[in-house]
């Protein structure tokens, strides 16, 4: 609520600043020649109000919770302040719940109630102070900007500089995201590797991420060997590729070499629908149709097929990836110059011979890149395998058995409440790091190949 008030207030100040600045510039324009059009004078004021106001808001949003919490702790009795971190957290959560919903575990001590009330009072006061400070700063910034206005003031250049800075900031957000991913994964994975040695993780052959609740529990040590997960991921990816590559590639060949414009205009969007279907829907389809189908087929042939077989998940994932392979290879084949085809046809080759002996070899690097991208996509796919593949880590190459994958484990380890220090939770970040590294390497090479290939014929 507070935040909404501040945003509306700052926006109103900026609007007022814009109108005033424009009016002043119009007045100046009546008597002399001004450098920039009046709108820029207004925009200059509005921008400074916005920047100053939102900077205060952002500052408050980032630091207020930590300061309030620190104050709340300092208001608690000394005995409670000395409690270990986890118990202190419980006390604080209890007080906060009492404040927000009136529900608490047990009754709070008078000191706790008093601290809670002071805390609430401080937060209320702080939010009002913040509103006034933000409004005041926005007004001040607008006023300072207004004082600079004059006929010769280069408002347009100043506004353009601000916009340019905003654009640069916007384009670094993608970089910041990458840094955020890398550092958060590395940080949590490092904490994991202090408990489980790196090589045990990478080369261990057993995965059962159960950690003991009591120290004397049987089998509670937990085993964190990623090999079964990697093997399971590769098995499912391999099955998916066996479906996606031939179907995708042949559709692409037909689409780019044989199909007329009419056929293309129908078939291409149809294939693209496959790419647009959410993966959770594919997962449901795998559970509902594919898994029973393979199980019944196996039953009638007398072969036991697990109801969470790698085959069902892999086939459905393959279907999902078909449009990926087909549209990328289609692009690549279209980029092969027509002259190469004409040359082959002029020498008497049939169309299929042209495709097999001229177009495909010329497009091969691009197709390899497309397949690598598809592989990375299959490795990182989550919902299909979460729903259709198993949870138990079997080290097997039999597609009829249930296997589990890296993404399945990440999702199952992190869905629901988790404590942030257990090896179980942290192992998900180590798996995430593994996944990120592998897919990044695949993408990087695939993109390089595709790019270099494109340049070759440009």
């Amino acid at each position: 609520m507070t935040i909404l008030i501040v945003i509306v207030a700052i926006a109103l100040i900026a609007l007022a600043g814009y109108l005033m600045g424009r009016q002043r510039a119009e007045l100046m324009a009546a008597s002399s020649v001004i450098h920039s059009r009046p709108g820029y004078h207004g925009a200059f004021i509005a921008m400074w109000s916005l920047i100053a106001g939102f900077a205060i808001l952002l500052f408050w949003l980032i630091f207020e919770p930590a300061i309030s919490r620190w104050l709340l702790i300092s208001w608690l009795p000394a005995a409670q302040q000395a409690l270990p971190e986890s118990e202190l957290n419980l006390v604080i959560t209890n007080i906060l719940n009492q404040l927000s919903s009136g529900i608490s575990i047990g009754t709070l001590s008078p000191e706790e109630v008093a601290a809670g009330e002071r805390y609430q009072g401080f937060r209320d006061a702080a939010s009002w102070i913040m509103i006034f400070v933000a409004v005041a700063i926005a007004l001040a910034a607008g006023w300072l900007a207004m004082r600079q206005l004059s006929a010769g003031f280069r408002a347009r250049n100043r506004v353009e500089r601000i916009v340019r800075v905003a654009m640069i900031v916007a384009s670094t957000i993608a970089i910041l995201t990458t840094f955020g991913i890398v550092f958060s994964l590395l940080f949590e994975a490092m904490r994991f590797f202090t408990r489980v040695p790196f090589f045990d993780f990478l080369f261990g052959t057993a995965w059962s991420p159960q950690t003991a609740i009591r120290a004397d529990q049987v089998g509670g040590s937990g085993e964190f060997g990623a090999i079964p997960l990697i093997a399971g991921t590769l098995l499912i990816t391999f099955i998916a590729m066996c479906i996606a590559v031939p179907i995708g590639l042949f559709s692409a060949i037909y689409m780019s070499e044989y199909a007329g414009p009419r056929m293309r205009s129908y078939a291409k969007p149809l294939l693209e629908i496959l790419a647009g279907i959410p993966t959770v829907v594919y997962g449901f389809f795998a559970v509902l149709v594919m898994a029973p189908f393979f199980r019944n087929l196996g039953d009638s042939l007398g072969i036991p097929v697990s109801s969470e077989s790698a085959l069902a998940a892999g086939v459905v994932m393959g279907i999902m990836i078909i449009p990926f392979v087909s549209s990328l290879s289609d692009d690549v084949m279209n980029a092969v110059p027509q002259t190469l085809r004409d040359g082959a046809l002029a020498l008497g080759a049939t169309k299929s011979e042209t495709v097999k002996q001229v177009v495909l070899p010329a497009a091969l690097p691009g197709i390899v890149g497309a397949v690598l991208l598809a592989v990375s996509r299959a490795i990182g796919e989550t919902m299909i395998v979460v729903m259709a593949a198993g949870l138990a880590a079997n080290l097997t190459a039999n597609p009829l058995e249930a296997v589990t994958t890296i993404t399945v484990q990440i999702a199952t380890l992190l869905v629901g409440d988790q404590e942030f220090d257990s090896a179980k939770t942290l192992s998900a970040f180590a798996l995430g790091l593994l996944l990120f590294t592998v897919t990044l390497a695949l993408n990087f090479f695939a993109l390089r190949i595709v790019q270099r290939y494109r340049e070759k014929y440009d």
Partner: protein
Amino acid sequence: MTDTSLDRGAESLVKPDLSAARIRKRHRAEFRFKAYGLFAIAVAVAFLTLFLGTIIVRGIPGFFQTYVLLDVDIAPEVADPSGAGTPDSVRRGNYSVLLRDALLQDFPDASGRTERRDLANILSPIARFNLQDEVVADPSLVGQQVQEWFLMSDDADRFFKGITTADMPADQRRLTDQQVAWLQALEAEGKVETRFDWNFFTVGNSAEPEAAGMGAAIVGSLLTMMVMLILCVPVGVLAAIYLEEFAPKNKITDIIEININNLAAVPSIVFGLLGLAVFLSFFGLPRSAPLVGGIVLALMTLPTIIITTRAALKAVPPSIREGAVALGASKLQSVTHHVLPLALPGILTGTIIGLAQALGETAPLLLIGMFAFVQEAPNGILDTATVIPVQIYSWADQAERAYEAKTSAAIMVLLFFLISMNAVAVLLRRRFERRW
């Protein structure tokens, strides 16, 4: 000239069949190759048809619910044990007994505990809350007789929809023979009706499949998408304009560009890990909130928006920019006044495609706790919420068979949203596409 043609003629006289056979073979190979291509497309389209067909066939029953007409005697001693007649006192009434008695009126021969329990079980456990709400809202109903439609249980519902039938084994249809007889009797009396279930679009999740709806998930999705759009579109468009129009060609821009391309291919679940580690655990934002979901999806969709916006900007010919600059516009003016309006349809198309991608995304949202049981639609971006695909996932995970139809129905709603968004994108492209 004559000599050579004679030579050729002589050669073809020696082995005439061979070349004709080779040509036939090559043409057969040609035909086969072409057939493989057609077959591949046919397989893909067949999968798509199977896919949509299954979802539609299984999903349509999910939009309907079965109700039964009952004459309920709201006996004062049961509905209002204390006799005060206030909303508070009638709230304490035992409404399951009232409903059971109403059913016993129709079937007086049901005797014994098991049989009476079975009889009561053809109604949904939710029915008694509906009756309770009604009496609490109007306590004067106590002592009267009302005739009303009540929600039936999921098993009875499936029976009336023909998913289970009377000749199935009892454990498969999850109804006893006696229950089936009752249901058939009720149907014969015309007291059963299967209607379109508008509640499906308005109410939240429920522990009972017959009362579960996706209203809360739809609101959650809307809020999440709103947060995503507010964050993602301005940033994405600004970044694209900078990279396409202003950025100098140097190492740093190259790195940004490679980075964006790679980010577009990072598995979505990794963004969930980012959200969990950075926004939930480091910044302490609330779990399960549309705010965090929106931020995570915005970061995930950002590369898509940047890439499509750049493509749209690139499609505007340089002569437009040169014309503007020649007339005295600054670089930024030439972009905002001329290039951007021309690229707008392309940017909108890209935004819609990114939005559709985010709307169907599940995995990262699971990790930031949007896999919550949400009964009430969220009131704001900090409330506990779920979104449509996550709702689909949680229903698909349920053991009760009745959720299967609900899941398929929810998928149909999601696909409806996605298809309409894509249709808008296609229309925009068709309507405003300009060839230069």
